[in-house]
């Protein structure tokens, strides 16, 4: 009997093994939808970004004007812009839920996949930050000034590094040009890393809510998960539609509708909502270098999770105490997001410091509590 083309063709067979005949666990819950949703977000951002790049001008005298031109004069330019801007928010909703799912169900034990995922998270954050600078509004300019200045906290080379990054002695035309180039290139690096992320994932196979081996009951990816992913895609597109077409400025800072003015500092400088938790952690440390280290650690600490996993079972489904801790951690994340938006004054300072401490404590408390639970469950047998 002749094998079908999808199994014999050298190129199509690769796609077939990844998206069609791929053996997948049969009990994947809705939380496993966010991987494919992130793929859709990335493609949407790249496509809309390409259309925007055709009309954008990365010169400090023209950037704001060109964005206005896109919104007012280019056919459906306003739609491309609002999808791109709000799509970034949706991207982060999906990426945080995807990371949270991996933490909850112990998917991080596929260590290569997890580490590439964290690099992807870092790159996505960098890309989003670079993109936020491009419209050259007040918050773009001052956000870029504050964040790039963080590098000056590095001993000895900090200041030189900041000047090198700026391409001058302040955030200026050179900075905007290079930020545009990097913002254009990084998504393609992300795309390449996504392929590697999937490559490693398919080496081990997907985890599942029970965290046990799926080899006893596998189903083909197509049609079961393709049809489930399509439902997810439509729900994501509905969410994007609701924001973009009914409330496009819901997540936008009004300051960014004012052209950048280096002589006028906004009263409150704050990043987009998806960076607020990290911003709150940064501001909680009274020392600049300490704040920058805490900021980096807020993400880098995710890399430690696999090393701290000593549980007998993989998934939190069997650890009620860890489940409580996890949802408390989500609460801490939300409180930090809220704190990042508040002015630096009491009581927000001490609330931020307390919750920053709790944020990092989670990563210690979670393995400890699973160890305690394991002790209660298994100590009688041994």
């Amino acid at each position, binding site marked *: 009997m002749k094998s079908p083309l999808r199994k014999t063709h050298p190129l199509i067979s690769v796609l077939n093994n990844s998206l069609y005949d791929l053996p997948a666990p049969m009990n994947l819950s809705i939380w496993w939808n966010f991987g494919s949703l992130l793929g859709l977000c990335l493609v949407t951002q790249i496509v809309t970004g390409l259309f925007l790049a055709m009309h954008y001008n990365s010169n400090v005298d023209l950037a704001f004007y060109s964005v*206005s031109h896109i919104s007012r004069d280019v056919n459906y330019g306003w739609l491309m812009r609002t999808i791109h801007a709000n799509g970034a928010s949706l991207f982060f909703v999906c990426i945080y839920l995807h990371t949270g799912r991996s933490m909850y169900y112990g998917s991080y034990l596929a260590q290569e996949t997890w580490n590439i995922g964290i690099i992807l998270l870092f790159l996505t954050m960098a890309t989003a930050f670079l993109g936020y600078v491009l419209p050259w509004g007040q918050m773009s300019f001052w956000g870029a000034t504050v964040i790039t200045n963080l590098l000056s906290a590095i001993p000895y080379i900090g200041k030189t590094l900041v000047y090198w990054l700026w391409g001058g002695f302040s955030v200026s035309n050179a900075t905007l040009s290079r930020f545009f180039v990097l913002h254009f290139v990084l998504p393609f690096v992300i795309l390449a890393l996504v392929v590697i992320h999937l490559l490693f994932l398919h080496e081990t196979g997907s985890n599942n809510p029970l965290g046990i081996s799926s080899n006893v009951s596998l189903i083909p990816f197509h049609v079961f998960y393709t049809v*489930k992913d399509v*439902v997810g895609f439509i729900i994501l597109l*509905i969410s994007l*539609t609701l924001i973009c*077409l*009914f409330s*496009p400025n819901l997540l936008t800072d009004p300051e960014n*509708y004012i052209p950048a003015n280096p002589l006028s500092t906004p009263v409150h400088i704050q990043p987009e909502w998806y960076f607020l938790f990290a911003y709150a952690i940064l501001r909680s440390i009274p020392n600049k270098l300490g704040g920058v280290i805490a900021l980096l650690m807020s993400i880098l600490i995710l890399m430690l999770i696999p090393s701290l996993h000593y549980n007998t079972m993989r998934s939190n489904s069997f650890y009620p105490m860890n489940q409580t801790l996890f949802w408390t951690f989500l609460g801490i994340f939300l*409180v930090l997001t809220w704190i990042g938006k508040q002015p630096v004054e009491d009581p927000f300072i001490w609330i931020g410091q307390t919750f920053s401490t709790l944020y990092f404590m989670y990563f210690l408390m979670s393995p400890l509590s699973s160890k305690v639970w394991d002790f209660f469950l298994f100590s009688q047998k041994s």
Partner: protein
Amino acid sequence: MATLVGRASKQALLRAHSSIIHQKANLSFKNLSKGKKWAVAAFGTLTAGGVGLAVALNTAVLASDLTLHPPKYPWDHAGLLSALDRASVRRGYQVYKQVCAACHSLEYMYYRNLVGEIMEEDEAKAEAAEIMVVDGPNDQGLMFERPGKLSDKFPKPYPNDEAARAANNGALPPDLTYIVNARHGGENYLFSILTGYCDPPAGVEVREGLHYNPYFPGGSIAMAQALYNEIIEYDDGTPATTSQLAKDVCTFLRWVAEPEHDTRKRMGIKAIMIFTVLLTSAYYMKRAKWAPLKTQKIAFKPR
């Protein structure tokens, strides 16, 4: 239809025997021990208290905060499915042209933007022709003045920012193209500013050349009250009260900031209709494909 019948019959065939004991989630607090009840109650109280505290802190009014926050007004276009009131936008343009344009620019607006939105093409051409534009160079290499065309931008009141500051006691009148989006509160803030001028309360001193307005951050604003009853006469005969003038110019400025406003909402309605059909179909298909797996029986028969 076949799937429906199939599913119905399968469900009947696969109905579990009543003797099988089902494991059900037990969400009742009745069976909890006293200690656990206290722990759950304490946790609940703590969470609710924390959320309450956060809400209270978020909405706190500080004594140092002297700025009055604008109330929310019932704008005709504020609804999810509401369009801009075009007659109001047109009247607002008249207010802008006769009052605001003396100091404020609309840097990103062209006369062509008026066509088909609030004016006929001929009207907009006549409107543009009222201004004189420096053009050139001509065949002799000289700049010359000509009447405006649809492709021309709205004129600026001052040649540059320095001239604007010099004419306004050091204050720079902001460009109004994106003013509705560039201020917290949008139209509500603008309406409140335009209609909120009053005498300063006892103990508040306003520097010379400034004016008291409780809605402006700090309370002192360089712009004097610009709108008064009957300051202009509307072409359509609408009584030009201060609040009517303010409402119309705010609606006009919403349109200026978002010319796509109505198209956007119309597109939203269409998209939701299409996505509803797609979601229903996709969800049905998903259920149909997964039904055999979800309803399968796995028997374990140890020998």
